[in-house]
């Protein structure tokens, strides 16, 4: 009887373990099945590098280059903003802040991570967008820059907490060694701690940026959603994610438009997957 119980529990756990992989495979297969169909009408090359996204004109033009560039521009802007602030914040929390400040800051960062992206988008829409419009004298504040700034807020918690972990896991003996040689606190941080934690910090950056690429709601609300190739960060853009979210509702099931949206999903999947694998490689290198 006891053996039977063991057997049941063991198999149940096995099923739970396999389930997640099974569902990932199912989702991926579905994505492939629906997405690849678009390549019957448009070549991969034309799809990725086509400059026009007019999915409902006749015949439809399904070039996603403006969307890819939109996503990259917003994400790159977010990375440029969030990396220095995030890493700086992690260094401050891990190395400089007194215990009490550290606790308050960490709680603050966690709270930032807990804000739903639609709320951030809404706040951005009523505060940041008019600000960008007035500061740069633009016809509209719905720009890639606005999206970048809001996205930076979303990437920051990930960057801070993982980079902070990386700094904590640097052996204490390195720090002692540097101080014993007469290094100041800043010299110790930039000559020993940061190089020693570099792979973990890189992983933090990759994961933070990865989160940015997949983000949908906030960028859809504040980037203006113009599917044209952006010529500056002050122009409205449309991201890959926003395109799917905005158009899936009106795409006719089985149409080329519908298949193209799934193909965009594949592109997003490939990008996120590549970013996560790279981050993982850095994390494992650390251990």
């Amino acid at each position: 009887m006891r053996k039977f119980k063991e057997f049941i529990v063991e198999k149940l756990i096995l099923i739970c373990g396999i389930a997640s992989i099974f569902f990932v495979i199912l989702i991926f297969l579905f994505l492939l099945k629906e997405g690849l169909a678009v390549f019957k009408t448009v070549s991969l090359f034309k799809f990725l590098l086509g400059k026009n996204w007019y999915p409902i004109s006749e015949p439809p033009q399904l070039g996603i280059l403006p969307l890819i560039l939109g996503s990259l521009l917003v994400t790159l802007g977010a990375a440029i903003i969030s990396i220095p602030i995030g890493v700086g914040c992690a260094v401050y929390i891990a190395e400089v802040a007194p215990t009490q400040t550290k606790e308050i800051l960490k709680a603050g960062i966690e709270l930032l991570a807990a804000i739903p992206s639609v709320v951030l988008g809404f706040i951005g829409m009523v505060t940041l967008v008019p600000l960008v419009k007035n500061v740069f004298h633009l016809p509209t504040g719905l720009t890639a820059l606005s999206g970048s700034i809001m996205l930076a807020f979303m990437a920051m918690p990930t960057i801070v907490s993982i980079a902070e972990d990386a700094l904590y896991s640097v052996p204490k003996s390195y720090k002692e060694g540097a101080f014993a040689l007469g290094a100041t606190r800043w010299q110790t941080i930039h000559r020993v701690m940061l190089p020693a934690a570099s792979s973990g910090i890189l992983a933090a950056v990759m994961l933070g940026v990865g989160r940015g690429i997949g983000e949908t709601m906030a960028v859809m609300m504040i980037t203006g959603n113009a599917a044209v190739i952006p010529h500056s960060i002050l122009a409205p853009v449309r991201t890959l994610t926003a395109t799917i979210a905005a158009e899936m509702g009106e795409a006719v099931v089985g149409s080329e438009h519908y298949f193209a949206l799934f193909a965009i999903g594949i592109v997003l999947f490939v990008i996120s997957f590549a970013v996560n694998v790279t981050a993982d490689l850095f994390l494992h290198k650390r251990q």
Partner: protein
Amino acid sequence: MAKIITKDLNLWYGGFHALKNISLSFESNRITAIIGPSGCGKSTLLRVFNRMNDFIEGLRQDGEVLIDGVNILNGKTDLVALRKRVGMVFQRPNPFPLSVYENIVFGERIHADSVNQDTLDEVVENSLKSVLLWDELKDKLNKSALMLSLEQKQRLCIARVIAVKPDVLLMDEPCSALDPQATMRIEELMRELKNNYTIIIVTHSMQQAARVSDDAGFMLLGELIEFGNTDQIFTAPHDKRTEDYITGRYG
């Protein structure tokens, strides 16, 4: 000549009285060993001399520690200058995750206002020569220091300290991670280095203290029980507790 003198040194970690009225002096160009069972305060004492205890919260100390006649325990002490003069070698070799070369020039880079490539090369060669690593490592200067053997790492750490040109070398159980042969060679190195430095070594190994030191102090529960010439301490200790410890009755 006395290099370091402590007068009525007391130290507390919060409510714990870790060093009790320590008064002794360390001579230049000699090796002084501090022995005693774990937790007797010997490492704490060593870390007073380069103020490494400062990082511990709730630390309180009074009394005087004079290095070349200057009290280093007051608030005005320039810690960077102090640690440049008083170098430390740790229990576990702790080279930085940088190249052999960068480990050695670390001190030069942080202390010099401007660095000159020729000076750096010279520092690396001289420091590695003085720890007898030059021949082994001269072709591997750009390799990561983490690839070295434990003994090489510890020698590298000594070279890294020497490169800063200190007067005093503090060694906190420098051989405890090494095998007997490596230990022997590091001890030889210490004998050679004492011509130029004041060396203070903390060790839990009485044999090591007997082999390597000129003077020795025995500590127990935060007190300095006995201090004197190593031969005298090991052959004719005045205090019953010292005798009990070195004859292995406890510890």
